[in-house]
């Protein structure tokens, strides 16, 4: 069995993306001050992409684990659950 890219893995999941409201938002000013950027390594969905001195982020594909919220010790992100019925929907779990 071969390795799968994150995109291939996320492609196996069912998502109902909230097109209007982002359940996680970043404060780029704080991100710019963060040296280690643990979110990049910790996010199981690989949604935090380093770009210059900040990170690019897209909440579509979020597995809603909450890891980023815990590892972001500078408090540069605001984390909430997606609105009811939206987000990832596990068919196996």
């Amino acid at each position, binding site marked *: 069995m071969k390795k799968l890219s994150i995109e291939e*893995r996320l492609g196996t999941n069912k998502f109902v993306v909230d097109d209007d409201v982002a359940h996680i938002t970043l404060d780029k000013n704080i991100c710019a001050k963060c040296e280690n950027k643990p979110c990049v390594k*910790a996010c199981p969905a690989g949604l935090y992409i380093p770009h210059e001195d900040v990170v690019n982020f897209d909440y579509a594909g979020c597995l809603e684990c909450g890891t980023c919220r815990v590892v972001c010790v500078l408090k540069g992100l605001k984390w909430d659950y*997606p609105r009811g019925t939206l987000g990832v929907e596990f068919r*196996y779990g």
Partner: protein
Amino acid sequence: MEERFDAIIVGAGPAGSIAAYCMAKEGLDVLLIERGTAPGAKNMTGGRLYGHSLDKIIPNFWKEAPVERRVTREMVTFLTGESAISLDVKSEKFNDSPSYTVLRADFDAWLADQAEEAGAMVASGVLVDELLMEDGKVVGVRSGEDEMYANVVIAADGVNSLLAQKAGLRGELLPKHVATGVKEVIELPRKVIEERFNLSGDTGAAQLFVGECTQGLQGGGFLYTNKESISLGLVITAEEFAHTEYRIADLMEEFKMHPSIQPLIKDGKVVEYSAHLVPEGGWNMMPPLLTDGLLIVGDAAGLVLNTGYMVRGMDFAIASGEAAAKAVINAKNKEDYTKQRLSLYKEELENSFVLQDLKTYENAPEFMENHRIFGHYPKLVEEMMINLFRVDGTPAQPLRKSMLATVKRQGGILQVAKDAWKGVRSL
């Protein structure tokens, strides 16, 4: 006058559904709220359920519930780049107190169905935004425009429990107290799984891994056999991500490539990739379990135990749901919903395995912070075992000599003895 429930439970995982089930069975008016489209839609586990606490509430639940396999084979494996050294126990004796592999989408939906059949009202697709407070007491919840009132609210909203935080019972989660779990569900024909793991009928295997799979980071790997799939994944303490270059998403794929994993998943198809936080701080991260009008249960209360060779959460969650239900039923009978009366919940947990086991293993999380367990010791065990079994024509060394040489090379006798003693004391 608004409709007022006896209890509102937020979150239809095992803790929430069991709390709702136990209260509804006693005739209480309960509302179980779930943010997913259906109970189970947001939940995942490694995963295995130790059956004892659910069996006490719903005897022989496994006959009806969508469990996957009954575990009769337990393995713990030290993994290095080229080797796997395992403790492998296959026994029918595990049937005396059975555990089951589960997939949560189906399992949690079934549990919530039991609550609904017992008379609970289940509202799915509803995200609770706030707790409603009056005179410093929790009196209900708000979702969007809707306000719902109850004598007691039970926060069963999982490890990220925003409700416990909003009630001031819990601060931010600390990176050292939680671990990130990732999992791939890999589909394979039933027969293939049974052949590869030496299983028959509905029996199953559980395997935990330490070492190479996390590149020495604090954590480990897991594998559980389901009926027609394998759950394979990694768990890594969140604190580690500040100091590593590895991404957990990549480590997962490296783990799959290991020569001792590849043959087990050959020709399999990944059908889901999921992730979840695990509250692993144990006794030392436990928040106050209640306040006026609010009880917190399951993962929200941090009721998880990881000893390295065993991971338990769902059996604690279920027992905590039952204990919370008892406290609310008692409060209703006495028409007294004060914190004092509701503290029966805490007493119930203290008198059960839940808090007793967490207390017993209080020092386990600290012991696990020792990085030698994840880096050095798998290599040490590998070297010993290779020396034990290898014949290459060079003059043989007495066993005690070669073993001692290995220990010396991997940290020294004193260090190894110290760590072993700490392990014995905390486990």
